[in-house]
């Protein structure tokens, strides 16, 4: 971020010199307006009962043109157009595109530098969490007591669906976006991503999605829950069009990002960085984005099909016309179950990465960590129908899906072994990111074990569709993965911003939010066990106490998260200037100066050992196999 010693801005760039977020928004609006006007004239703007196709056509066309206009205005198509015209990029063009010497303004452009993309992702993620968090507060406010009705059922349902999908998207990108982009290339000793322009493309596609997703607020919301089951989705207002366009564009973005990150890690690791010397965070990121590559296309397909049903008279899911609702459910969960591990794995991997730094011990059984991640990835694509035990779709398949689901507890258990093995006898340097690991382990053991109850078919009869499920997945995704992301922010903050994270303010925010989190969702487990369904705007007086407790907890989380946000903003703007390696860590990203120069390394490093060489030899538990000079240690 420092701009004190700035050289001249490169001469290249051509048209890209004129394009930025402002031109993107402007072009997006112009395209969207033209699309809306023409489509409206052709298909009718009407909202009448016999014109629902026309209405959805207009909005789908408007949103598509917004995205195309936005991407045009940011300059995503300049490169391909120049290329097809035979004008390849000059060195100066590339330096301009990488944001060389452009200070703050490069964060508002189609900049290819992976570090800029990482920071951009962080901002987008935080924005989504902020909106999703406000929506969560609206939900919990409505549920404080049986009689608090801040809004009607329609709005309540719309808010629940919006909260769900916003949080899902935010959690999917929260680690691989900011840290997968900023940290991973440096960590593996590369100068940038394999495909820097695709990297910028994936980020700006997400950016173009944000207004589409939020437009649902003005188009009737997403009153179907984030799963948007059919044929309920067909009854929903045009907010559903926002949903399906979001998913389609998001799937393209995640495919582009996934291919890019996987290629980068496979092809561009520094000399000597064998797979055994590749940091565990890199494995976590590759597992996550790699898993997204098969997962999201099915989700995208389901939404393309649902778009056909809504706007073009298709009959994929419209049961009244002969469509198949179970087809949707299958396509949805074919994405939906791998997706929770897309979210979870990088959060845990970030913590496995920095745990050895604070415990000053090697990561316990690196191989088990790799195998655990691989095992989860492999099994996670075979478990989707455990979400469908109660649909009646294929009762004979319940037992095999119970098997695959329960098997996941073995590789997940290996990750727990890695964590507690690393903690074992380690003299802990109790900085805030380290303490976040403890919080994660507490939350995730609850989230993980309650998942085993849900995997059991007969038990799921009692729990499926209840608040118990809501509590369970918040414990895994929020208590596990999101806390992992909070830890990652605190840990890599000095490298990304050049300033230290304020652990005093941060600790208040973190612990208040953790206490609130446990209060909220333990309350939710209780009402779920007692029989409260999910996604209900009002409830029986049986559940009054539990809901009140949950709402009090939710306000506590919100307070804590605001303080945490304040800590981030305060530290970013006026925190203590960070040294290059404040934690004494051994991975490569800490060996380069802060702020990290363009292209990261003057000379590419050669790797001779794994990055976890902390601690003193322990002769009882780990016999020394290599000869050691006498007098090496006292």
């Amino acid at each position, binding site marked *: 971020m420092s701009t004190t010693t700035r050289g001249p801005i490169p001469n290249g760039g051509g048209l890209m010199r004129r394009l930025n977020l402002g031109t993107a928004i402007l072009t997006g609006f112009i395209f969207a307006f033209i699309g809306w006007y023409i489509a409206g004239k052709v298909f009718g703007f009407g909202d009448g009962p016999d014109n629902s196709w026309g209405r959805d056509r207009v909005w789908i066309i408007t949103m598509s043109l917004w995205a195309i206009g936005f991407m045009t205005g940011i300059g995503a198509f300049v490169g391909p157009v120049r290329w097809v015209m035979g004008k390849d990029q000059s060195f100066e063009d590339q330096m301009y595109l990488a944001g060389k010497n452009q200070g703050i303004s490069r964060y508002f452009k189609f900049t290819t530098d992976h570090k800029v993309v990482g920071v951009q992702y962080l901002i987008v993620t935080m924005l989504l969490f902020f909106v999703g968090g406000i929506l969560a507060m609206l939900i919990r406010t409505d549920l404080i007591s049986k009689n608090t009705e801040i809004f009607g059922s329609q709005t309540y349902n719309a808010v629940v669906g919006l909260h769900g999908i916003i949080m899902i998207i935010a959690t999917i990108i929260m680690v691989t976006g900011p840290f997968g982009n900023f940290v991973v290339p440096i960590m593996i000793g590369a100068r940038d991503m394999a495909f820097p322009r695709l990297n910028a493309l994936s980020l700006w596609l997400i950016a173009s999605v944000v207004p589409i997703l939020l437009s649902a607020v003005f188009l009737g919301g997403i009153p179907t829950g984030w799963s948007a089951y059919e044929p309920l989705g067909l009854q929903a207002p045009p907010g559903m069009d926002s949903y399906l366009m979001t998913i389609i564009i998001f799937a393209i973005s995640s495919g582009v990002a996934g291919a890019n990150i996987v290629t980068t890690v496979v092809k561009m690791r520094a000399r000597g960085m064998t797979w055994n010397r590749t940091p565990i965070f890199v494995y976590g990121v590759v597992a996550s984005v790699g898993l997204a590559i098969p997962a999201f296309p099915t989700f995208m397909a389901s939404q393309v099909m649902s778009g056909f049903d809504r706007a073009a008279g298709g009959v994929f899911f419209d049961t009244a016309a002969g469509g198949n609702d179970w087809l949707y459910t299958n396509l949805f969960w074919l994405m939906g179950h791998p997706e929770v591990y897309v979210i979870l794995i990088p959060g845990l991997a970030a913590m496995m990465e920095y745990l050895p730094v604070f415990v000053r011990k090697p990561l316990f059984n690196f191989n088990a960590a790799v195998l655990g991640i691989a095992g989860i990835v492999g099994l996670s694509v075979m478990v989707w129908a455990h979400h469908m035990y109660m649909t009646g779709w294929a009762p004979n398949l319940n037992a095999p899906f119970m098997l695959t689901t329960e098997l996941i507890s073995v590789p997940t258990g290996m990750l727990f072994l890695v964590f507690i*093995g690393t903690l074992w006898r380690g003299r802990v*340097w109790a900085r805030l990111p380290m303490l976040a690991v403890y919080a994660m382990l507490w939350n995730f053991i609850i989230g993980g074990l309650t998942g085993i109850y849900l995997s059991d078919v007969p038990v799921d009869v009692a729990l499926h569709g209840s608040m118990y499920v809501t509590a369970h997945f918040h414990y895994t995704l929020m208590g596990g993965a999101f806390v992992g992301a909070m830890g990652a922010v605190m840990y890599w903050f000095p490298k990304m911003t050049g300033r230290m994270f304020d652990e005093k303010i941060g600790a208040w925010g973190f612990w208040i939010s953790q206490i609130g989190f446990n209060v909220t969702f333990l309350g939710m487990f209780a009402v779920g066990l007692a029989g409260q369904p999910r996604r209900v705007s009002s409830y029986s007086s049986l559940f009054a106490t539990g809901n009140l407790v949950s709402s009090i907890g939710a306000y506590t989380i919100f307070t804590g998260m605001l303080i945490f946000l304040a800590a981030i903003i305060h530290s970013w703007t006026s925190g203590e200037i960070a040294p290059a390696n404040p934690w004494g860590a051994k991975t490569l990203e800490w060996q380069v100066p802060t702020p990290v120069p363009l292209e990261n390394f003057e000379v590419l490093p050669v790797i001779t050992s794994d990055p976890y060489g902390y*601690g003193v030899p*322990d002769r009882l*538990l*780990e016999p020394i196999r290599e000869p050691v000079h006498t007098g090496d240690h006292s």
Partner: protein
Amino acid sequence: MSEHLDDQLEAQLPADKFRAWTKRPYIRHVFLIWLGLTILFEIFGPVQAHLMGAPASEAMKAIEDTMSLFTYTAAPVAALVISVVLYSIFGWRQPKGAGPSNESPAIKTNGPVTTAWVVISSLLCVFLLIWGLGEMNSLAPRNNGVKPLVIDAIGNQWVWTFKYPDNGNIESNQLYMPKDQPVVFHVSSVDVVHSLWIVQLGVKIDANPERVTLAHVTPTVIGRFDVRCAELCGLYHAHMQTNAVVVSPDDFNTWVANGGHA
């Protein structure tokens, strides 16, 4: 902690080593914390059963028993993780103000521990699976020569309708069932996906448009229970609930004779 033990132990036999290892002070502490936490977490078994309320069918009883069993089994597992966490915080943490330590042991891995961990977690997993399969098998409907009472349960935004084809096609918005009589639900929907959930009877199955799904139960307790919709079905999903009334066979016959009025 007394690392000097390490030197004395180096030359000993594995069995002696293990015994000596158990004498280390932190082992005793972690073990005691684990024991305490296990007992503490076991409390969630009865708490859970209390929250779920008294079961009103064999199926629900089996579900609650399974959940108790899972909780009793899970408690020591959770306690193991949390006891290491607690000892790490209170026993192994550097004093306040101290920087990173240079005295942590460089334990890269431990074969026997890893093996034991994976074997035990796999055994637990196999146990879970066998238990689940056995339970599914024992809860599967059986033809014991008793003809089950057929009830059509129809989801309709946002009410449940129950029809009794064996009893002159009576229609009711409350679910009446005789005690100790096997019942089979033919569940369907006229619009979107709903889910028939009879909470205390341990019945849940989706109501899908254009299809019929089946659910079986034998109510064993006379009383009034809750029927809810467990799948978001639109505007008044939250209000799509009614009562399940389990009565004696005589009362049920009276109800039928009255054409579905109590």
